[in-house]
């Protein structure tokens, strides 16, 4: 299947290359390289990003900043080497103007050097590793979603304000897991009675849940992306812990892409994110309705972030009058972020990461009985990441 899909992609790309001709700069179109995860266990996130971006293009009439928009898709299969091959090919042969789509931080870090060399802008609709926010911040990188620590910090703050005294923290044993719990502890000042790291990709949490029950904390924070989170929350309920120990987590672990698989076990869980489907602004209402109509499912944070990415690009292209060759002007236009974000207030920090609000959300059932999130409060206003000070740009 892989070689076939790659073959098809190659044929499409080749066909496109003949079509486009070297005159593309004058004929005036914007070429976007959409490198994201479209196969394997992580494909749900990538498909939401692709669909969110596509919906924005549809709403913009197939244009970005008044120029015709072309999206060239590539499936990175969640593998850094494949993402890099795709990026190199899109830059060299397809001559894309920007690259977007990347979900995973390790892939973003792998792509950045060659994109910087080629002077191609990389608008991340999700990945926001601390490296790119701090010492390795980059003039060609824009983190449109969040710096990775943001949601964890917001929940640390919420747990602190709830008066949680004894907290139990759990995450997979890899860099993002440690960063997540560091983010929580940056704002949670109570006692941490357990800081548990589990194997990446672990399926069964029975042993950890027994330990958790024995420790009897006031609250438990989990950072379990994707399938790990689904497993944990289902088992948490089956172990009879739901309702006894409050469960907290980052918004993307309780996002609309995984809620249907967790089922009612997720009901009532508090989580923090920079966006929610019920955010009351015209742009967001249009997005949520449009997404449901187009794809017959509720949008996730990933889809929302990708939609915003397209709006940002649209505003920047318009600002430079379609002259994508002037990289400095384009950078300034991107940095101005002169667009109506569906998440409300949004601006870029000096390190090209967002300064934005973080909301407290609760998992509830909507009118049609589907699980979704509603906002219960604002945790941070205009929150910036702690790494920006280290960025020299």
């Amino acid at each position: 299947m892989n070689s076939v899909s790659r073959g098809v992609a190659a044929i499409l790309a080749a066909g496109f290359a003949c079509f486009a001709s070297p005159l593309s700069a004058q004929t005036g179109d914007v070429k976007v390289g959409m490198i994201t995860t479209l196969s394997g266990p992580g494909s749900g996130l990538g498909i939401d990003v692709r669909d969110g971006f596509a919906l924005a293009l549809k709403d913009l009439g197939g244009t970005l900043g008044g120029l015709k928009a072309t999206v060239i898709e590539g499936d990175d299969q969640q593998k850094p080497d494949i993402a890099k091959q795709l990026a190199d090919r899109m830059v060299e042969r397809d001559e894309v103007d920007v690259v977007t789509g990347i979900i995973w931080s390790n892939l973003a870090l792998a792509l950045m050097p060659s994109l910087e060399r080629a002077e191609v802008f990389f608008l991340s609709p999700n990945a926001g590793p601390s490296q790119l926010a701090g010492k390795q911040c980059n003039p060609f990188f824009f983190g449109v979603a969040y710096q990775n620590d943001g949601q964890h910090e917001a929940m640390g703050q919420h747990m602190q304000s709830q008066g949680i005294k004894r907290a139990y923290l759990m995450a997979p044993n890899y860099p993002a897991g440690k960063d997540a719990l560091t983010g929580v502890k940056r704002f949670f000042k109570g006692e941490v009675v357990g800081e548990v790291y589990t194997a990446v990709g672990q399926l069964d949490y029975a042993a950890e849940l027994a330990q958790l029950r024995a420790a009897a904390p006031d609250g438990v924070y989990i950072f379990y992306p994707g399938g790990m989170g689904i497993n944990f929350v289902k088992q948490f309920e089956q172990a009879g812990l739901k309702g006894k120990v409050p469960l907290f987590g980052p918004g993307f672990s309780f996002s609309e892409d995984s809620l249907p698989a967790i089922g009612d076990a997720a009901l009532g869980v508090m989580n923090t994110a920079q966006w929610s489907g019920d955010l009351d602004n015209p742009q967001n209402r249009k997005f949520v309705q449009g997404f449901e109509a187009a794809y017959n499912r509720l949008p996730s944070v990933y889809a929302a972030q990708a939609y915003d990415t397209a709006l940002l690009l649209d505003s920047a292209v318009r600002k430079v009058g379609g002259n994508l060759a002037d990289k400095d002007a384009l950078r300034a236009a991107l940095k101005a972020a002169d667009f109506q974000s569906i998440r409300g207030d949004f601006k870029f920090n000096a390190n090209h990461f967002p300064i934005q609000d973080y909301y407290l959300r609760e998992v509830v059932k909507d009118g049609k009985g589907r699980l979704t999130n509603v906002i219960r409060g604002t945790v941070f206003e205009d929150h910036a990441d702690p790494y920006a000070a280290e960025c020299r740009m």
Partner: protein
Amino acid sequence: MNTLLLVEQGLNGLQLGVMLFLMAAGLTLVFGIMDMINLAHGSFYMVGAYLTATFAPLLDSFALGLLAALPLAALAGMAVEMVALRTLYRREHLDQVLATFGLILFFNELVRIVWGPQPIFLSPPAWLAGTVEIIPGVPYPAFRLAIIGVGLAVAGFLYLLITRTRTGMLIRAGASNREMLGALGVDVKRLYTLVFGLGAALAALAGAMAGPILAVQVGMGESVLILTFVVIVIGGLGSVRGALVGALLVGMVDTMARALLPTLLRAVMPPSQADGMGASLASMTIYILMAAVLAWKPRGLFPAHA
């Protein structure tokens, strides 16, 4: 750590063990009899979970959904055997590994096309959704007890099938000398297809039982496959008894290491360090166990082709 917690962790280890046994039994049966390494075994696990998650809500019963899913998974297994694997029996193991790896990719894409990229939900039957206090003061998930029961029942069924029935006799004969079996007039081709179907059904049963606990998602078979291979290597390739002992050993050692190591390390180092290092060591224990068993018995605990 108190005794009650230790007993609870013992149950958790047993439950993980019988779960792995359901997977390992089919895989080792196919290897023992056909000398075929089948990496796509995890795909039947995934297919079993997806089919059950589809039928259970339609039939409004987990058990009926399971009953509908298992024959279909067995048929899928037999179809794969007839279409794709039959030509591979006489090839080298490396060829089989490559071809069945291709099947993993095929099944993952097929499931994604049929059911979509988002994970889907499978609930346990209502009467098994809660907890029971088998040990006073410790609520234990009822569904996990059901998994233990089903796993042990399957172990008993396989024991009777292999030692007490004519089919079992043919399976054992096929494992030792397939040419002789063919010469005696047994339809070896059909026997292989049936055994492969049985293996697929066992994997599907494991997947269906895992569905209410785990995420039913594309690629769910891969992570469990690695553990299954560890079980089979420890137990001895081709031996169902080895699969049972290996699975229980791996389930118990893995659970106990995850439960005890961080606590033990806390006695000698600061908590946050102890938790991180305990987790790292715990995820290594089953591989250390495998290395130790192989150093002691290079062909596993109960090798079939001794």
